[in-house]
């Protein structure tokens, strides 16, 4: 039981950033713009957020510092994504091309800037943001152990973003309009909705969230940042598709994949798994094979937004 609680609690390290970034991708794709640049945006977001922390962590309250860093990461991601948005919305460029360009650009840019500023490419930080225990809540059985002990505000942020995303997409005027732009922009246009504006909004939100996701990804995993998020941007894209472009399913996919990854990397600390004597690489592969198998069963009807990837052209019918 203890082990399971531990695994669930550790799952957050994988699942929360995947969730946040995939939700970012959701906004973009639901507005009709494929965002393959999530990886690069994560790198930029993490870089800017960590740089802020690097300079400020000693001089301010840790949680305040983290919140500002999160905002900086989000805004940086958003500004960076603006390039993707301009290319794919206004200039009607192929969305894969500008996305790929951003992915190549981001790490190179971060290394360049880091060296310009501090002569080394790694940006160091100290993880002072962990909350050991949240009073009262942490004593709730099970949930308390998973969510309210040894936790980060980012975990709640992730869950909050999930709820807000769902709310925005399905309960607000903005969400309705955004989704219509991803399905049939002509309909939106003739209903007086500015498709370009909505797509900018969707894409920039995705940049904001992916930037945050990058920071959230790096914080608990290291003590420095080296312009790399280890392919998790692409995995977030996979989670988005796995989650069939729907917020709760994305959450399900993120936690499923996160949990599998957790078992795969934590098994050696758990006697039960250790006693099985299964080779390490078997565990490493399992999350991927499991995902592939699940996909084989759930993909019959794809729910991809109909107009995603197509630049909107007023003239085209």
């Amino acid at each position, binding site marked *: 039981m203890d082990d399971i609680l*531990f695994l669930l609690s*550790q799952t957050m390290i994988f699942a929360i950033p995947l969730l946040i970034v995939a939700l970012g991708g959701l906004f973009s794709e639901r507005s009709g713009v494929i965002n393959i640049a999530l990886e690069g945006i994560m790198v930029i977001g993490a870089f800017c957020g960590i740089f802020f922390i690097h300079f400020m962590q000693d001089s301010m309250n840790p949680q305040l510092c983290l919140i500002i860093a999160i905002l900086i990461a989000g805004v940086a991601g958003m500004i960076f994504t603006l390039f993707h948005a301009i290319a794919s919305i206004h200039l009607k460029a192929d969305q894969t091309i500008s996305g790929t360009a951003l992915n190549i650009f981001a790490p190179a840019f971060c290394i360049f800037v880091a060296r310009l500023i501090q002569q080394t490419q790694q940006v160091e930080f100290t993880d002072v943001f962990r909350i050991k225990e949240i009073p009262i809540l942490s004593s709730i059985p099970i949930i308390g152990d998973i969510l309210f002990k040894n936790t980060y505000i980012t975990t709640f942020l992730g869950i909050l973003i999930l709820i807000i995303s769902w709310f925005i997409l399905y309960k607000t005027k903005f969400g309705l309009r955004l989704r219509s732009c991803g399905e049939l922009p002509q309909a939106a246009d003739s209903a007086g909705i500015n498709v370009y504006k909505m797509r900018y909004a969707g894409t920039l939100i995705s940049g904001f969230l992916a930037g945050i996701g990058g920071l959230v990804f790096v914080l608990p995993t290291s003590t420095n940042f080296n312009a790399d998020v280890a392919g998790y941007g692409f995995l977030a894209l996979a989670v988005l598709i796995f989650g069939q472009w729907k917020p709760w399913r994305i959450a399900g996919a993120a936690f499923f994949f996160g949990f599998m990854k957790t078992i795969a990397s934590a098994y*050696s600390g758990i006697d039960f798994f250790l006693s099985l004597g299964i080779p390490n690489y078997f565990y490493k592969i399992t999350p991927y094979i499991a995902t592939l198998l699940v996909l084989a069963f759930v993909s019959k009807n794809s729910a991809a937004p109909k107009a995603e990837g197509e630049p909107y052209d007023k003239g085209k019918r």
Partner: protein
Amino acid sequence: GGGDKKTDDTTKKDGNAEIIMITDKGTIDDKSFNQGTYEGVEAYAKKNNKTFNYIKPVAATDDEYKNSIDQAVKQGAKVIVTPGYLFEPAIYAKQTEYSDVKFILIDGYPNDGNQENPKSNTENNAIGIKFQEEQSGYLAGYAAVKEGHTKLGFMGGMAVPAVMSFGYGYIQGADAAAKELGIDVSMNYHYTGDFKATPEVQNTAASWYKSGITAIFGCGGAVGNSVMAAAEKADPVGAVIGVDVDQATESKTVMTSAYKQLANAVNDALASIYSGDFDKVDDDKILFRGGQNIVLGAANNAIGLPMDTSTFKKFTKADYDKVYKTIQDGKVTIKNSTAGEDVSVIKTEKVKVNFIK
């Protein structure tokens, strides 16, 4: 650092330099042996007003390493410093071609790279320097157990010789201490597969701390950073053993570091070259001289633990000096990984090793 005008004032406008380092796959700020080597070069060159520079090869191939050596010579290099065993075949080939250039090869001895019947040869204008990482690892393992840790972890990056030697020494050191104390010790032993900080590494370390392991040797570049992240989060806070250099500044959880004095070695080798000692190839009183493959260890004070910055409570400086002396005196023999065998060749009495493979 490299890409800036402030520190490279010794570089001439044409990019030429007397001392040129060639990196292997890493960068000069990789917190690993590329960085250590570069620091040695930088320290010597700045103090002695020599021009210096570095080159990162286009790809990690013998051909490209050779190209980089050619390039360095073209840039006017009198001394070429290369870190890593990957340079062995390149130096083997180029030392004869450029007999008036000096080569310093760290962590390797020049050879032709043939696996079946390797040909080794170190010309008089070259030197191969290796370290006895196993001694450093031994000290770390010994100290950890003496400090009271009975459940240990080892997380290496990739299973390359230096990492393996650290690990093997670590096991043997822990075993020695356990025997002295008459206690049983268990150890998880694992290579993560890469020199990167990832959530996977953090998670593995976290699960180890959770399972009762109290000290983990994070041995391989940024792997240690993820171990530190996990240690900070563990309850109670875990201990981390750093590697290569004193990593105490990187996290409060760093209990000690198993270092090897790369920068010093490079510095000394350069000094030997410029003083002319290097060319006295038959004078066996001179350590850093041409034509030699040398190994540096406790005997040269080239490995050890930084006791000043270590956070030991029970393991004292006196304990350290004592065990250091036994190594220096050759009273203990520590098996290393020169043959690249599996960790199971290390026989222990009191340490139970879980090899996670």
